[in-house]
């Protein structure tokens, strides 16, 4: 796969295997070709252990690929502000309050304090954590911590936003609400988003494309374009087209699952 002019990130023939402590290799990704156009909202679904986190970590530069090419394109600012990630764990800094954790990237980039405060307040409200602004992470519930992790990445506002099961620890309502907030933010700036989720409806509701992966070795089974009109709302769920996409993806996942 070659890099189109408008691709934010492209992977060609990517292979990743881990060598185990006790010897033996685990192939996490095999022969993955994926190009993500600038400004696209792309979801990745697949069974547990199929290499979704590995894929994001490779793009982050956190894990080296064993074979293949990773390239970034387009008008990306050098070095800074390029990538942002919400990890599967919240990864908050225990010595910073909720507000300070949210503003981490602002602090690192020397943003003026005044503007940051307003941004933090808005984000706190969105996350439903206004009362917890001055609490420390270990005073929060699991879901609250995860919300702070999401907020931190959104405040960072990167060119490519990667989210690894960000809503996993949240109740349905908070989840829907944050999903809509995310969509709203995305509609405004059209940053590139790579979104890993276990919820098929969520992937359909949010994305332009859904990548369905197979387990061991992690391969791309199919990439499905979601041709639903934008802007989308929670009501989109009730349209027949939505249901069809969901059924189709579920069937794909099922067949992949039973093949093992």
């Amino acid at each position: 796969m070659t890099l189109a002019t408008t691709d934010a990130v492209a992977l060609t023939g990517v292979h990743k295997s881990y060598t185990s402590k006790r010897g033996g290799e685990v192939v996490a990704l095999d022969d993955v070709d994926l190009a993500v156009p600038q400004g696209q909202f792309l979801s990745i679904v697949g069974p547990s252990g199929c290499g979704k986190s590995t894929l994001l970590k490779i793009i982050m530069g956190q894990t080296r690929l064993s074979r293949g090419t990773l390239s970034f394109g387009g008008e990306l600012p050098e070095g800074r502000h390029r990538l942002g990630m919400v990890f599967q764990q919240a990864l908050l800094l225990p010595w910073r309050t909720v507000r300070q954790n949210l503003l981490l990237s602002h602090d690192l980039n020397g943003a003026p304090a005044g503007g940051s405060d307003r941004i933090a307040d808005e984000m706190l409200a969105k996350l439903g954590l206004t009362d917890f602004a001055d609490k420390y992470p270990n005073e929060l519930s699991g879901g609250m911590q995860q919300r702070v992790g999401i907020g931190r990445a959104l405040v960072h506002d990167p060119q490519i936003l990667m989210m690894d099961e960000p809503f996993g620890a949240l109740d349905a309502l908070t989840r829907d609400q944050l999903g809509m907030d995310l969509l709203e933010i995305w509609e405004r700036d059209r940053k590139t988003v790579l979104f890993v989720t276990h919820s098929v409806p969520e992937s359909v509701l949010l994305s332009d494309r859904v990548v369905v992966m197979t387990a061991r070795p992690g391969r791309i089974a199919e990439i499905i374009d979601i041709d639903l009109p934008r802007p989308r709302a929670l009501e989109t769920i009730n349209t027949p087209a939505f249901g069809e996409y969901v059924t189709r993806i579920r069937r794909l996942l099922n067949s992949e699952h039973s093949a093992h």
Partner: protein
Amino acid sequence: MTTTSDRTTSVPAGASAGRPPRKRLVDQPGWLLATGLAVLLLTAWEAAVVVFDVSPLIVPAPSAVALSLWSGLADGTLLSHAWITLQEILLGFSLAVVAALSVAFLVTQSRLVDKAVFPLVVATQTIPKVAIAPVLLIWFGTGMTSKVVTTALLAFFPLLVNAIHGLRSTDPDQVAMFRSFGATRGQIFRRLQFPSALPSIVAGLDVAAIFAVTGAIVAEFVGSTEGLGYVIQATNFTLDVSRTFAVLAMLSAIGITLHFIIVTIGKRVVFWANDVSRLDH
């Protein structure tokens, strides 16, 4: 099946009136318990000295030590010597902290320093300070500088190892997160690695402070005309063993004070670390 509950956790004692709280020994404040035990041990020691008729030239009775300590404090001599030693301890300790953290920074930031320089640093640590103290005297003179340097040399290594250990145990995922936020190397160090290492660094500071006390004394042994180490030598020469022990008691007091200062400040600084008390109920 029984109708009685086999365990009932009720309202904490404080809230329910009427029931007098049963004070257990372990709930007493720490200083009281430690002092109590110390008094107990000193009494046993006093008794042993009397019963076994130990020569005061080898191990004096605690009462004699206390008397000597009191008279030494009263006439001001011990205090003025202690002040000298304390300065050496604090200056040496500070020097060690700066040096150890700097080296730890370099070792953890540069693989070249880690591989090439660190083994040599370890190699120098085995050289007994007493053995190179003469060289230090020649380089830094007979004044306070050479004592401060010796003190720092002794306090340096425990802190260095702990700082490196702490800096290395930073979560790699968090480093990746900082990188993605465009953090510079320096920012990753200051904002992430250093705070992550703090619990380990505090433990290192604790050891370093205690060794700084020993370091200052050893330095004074080698060549000095003042300080508590000098007093130990002087009283050793005059076989004034009670006074020697009185000085040792002062050193213990200095050490334990430094320990508690570091532990207390440490707890405040590393407020987020696992609270031990959560393990005990």
